[in-house]
């Protein structure tokens, strides 16, 4: 399943790396009766692994 996008209206676009910095690293964190919260996951590790592997994939010549 691919989420479908709605185009943004105002404000300047944010680069993916800056969004990841912000959406994984900051933002309101709620706890308690929330089913899923990323607060318990080691996000920095996941994020770096993801980004580095993605960058490597992009740098390698496509087959």
């Amino acid at each position: 399943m691919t989420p479908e996008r709605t185009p943004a209206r105002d404000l300047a676009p944010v680069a993916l790396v800056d969004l990841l910095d912000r959406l994984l690293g900051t933002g309101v964190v709620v706890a308690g009766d929330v089913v899923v919260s990323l607060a318990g996951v080691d996000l920095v590790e996941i994020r770096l692994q993801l980004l580095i592997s993605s960058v490597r994939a992009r740098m390698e010549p496509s087959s």
Partner: protein
Amino acid sequence: MSEPETGRYLYAVCRGLDPAVVREVTALYAAPLELVAHQDLAAVVSTVPMAVFGEEALRRNLEDMTWLEDVVRLHDDVVRAVAVRAPTAPMRLATVCFDDAAVRARLRAMYIDLSHVLDRVEGCSEWSVKVLAPPDELAEAQVAAAAPSSGADYLRRKQTEARRRATRDDSAADAAARIHDELARLSRASRRLPPQDPRLSGLRGTMVLNAAFLVPDADRASFATLLDQLRADGGEVVVDARGPWPPYSFAMLDAR
């Protein structure tokens, strides 16, 4: 207890948002965007399948960069659609509650903290300012230079190079600190983020500052003027400024 089939994904909490705004926006998985209200606050939510956002599934999906990018972009689309209309506290990615009662309970429990966050960001936007020290071309040139003529020559060169590098790093750090402090004086709040790898940022050189500033919209012109001035006085460093953005870096609830 078995996991429910759907959950309510929280994008942001707004104050005084016109409910008509969310009707124009499509949420994750083409679901309608909705509001869950408590007093003057409204959580911006949509229904998501727990087969995708349940704890186990989420861990798996987070490893899929394409999926992550789609969700991050869509989360951002929703946040900016509401942030241009009302004071907005963006939520961290993938915050999912059981149902509307759970969302409302969170709003009630966090009401005072959320109100403080919204007071802070009201009428402001986030600006990203990165300071980059240019690539060390002299060091690169020396790698290619002739081999030392003796051991003493080698040591001498090494010491000179270490001193030169230390001076260079100090001056870039000083420039970054000055730029941060000057911009912070014109901002309602500021935060330092970890510097980014050039492979991720696409920016050349060493990132010596990755900062976010919460700037009142009324002060945008003076912020831009100050940026120009700092660029002119910056010497070797390059200043990369972006904005206005939703106040992503300034929605943390304090001391939690």
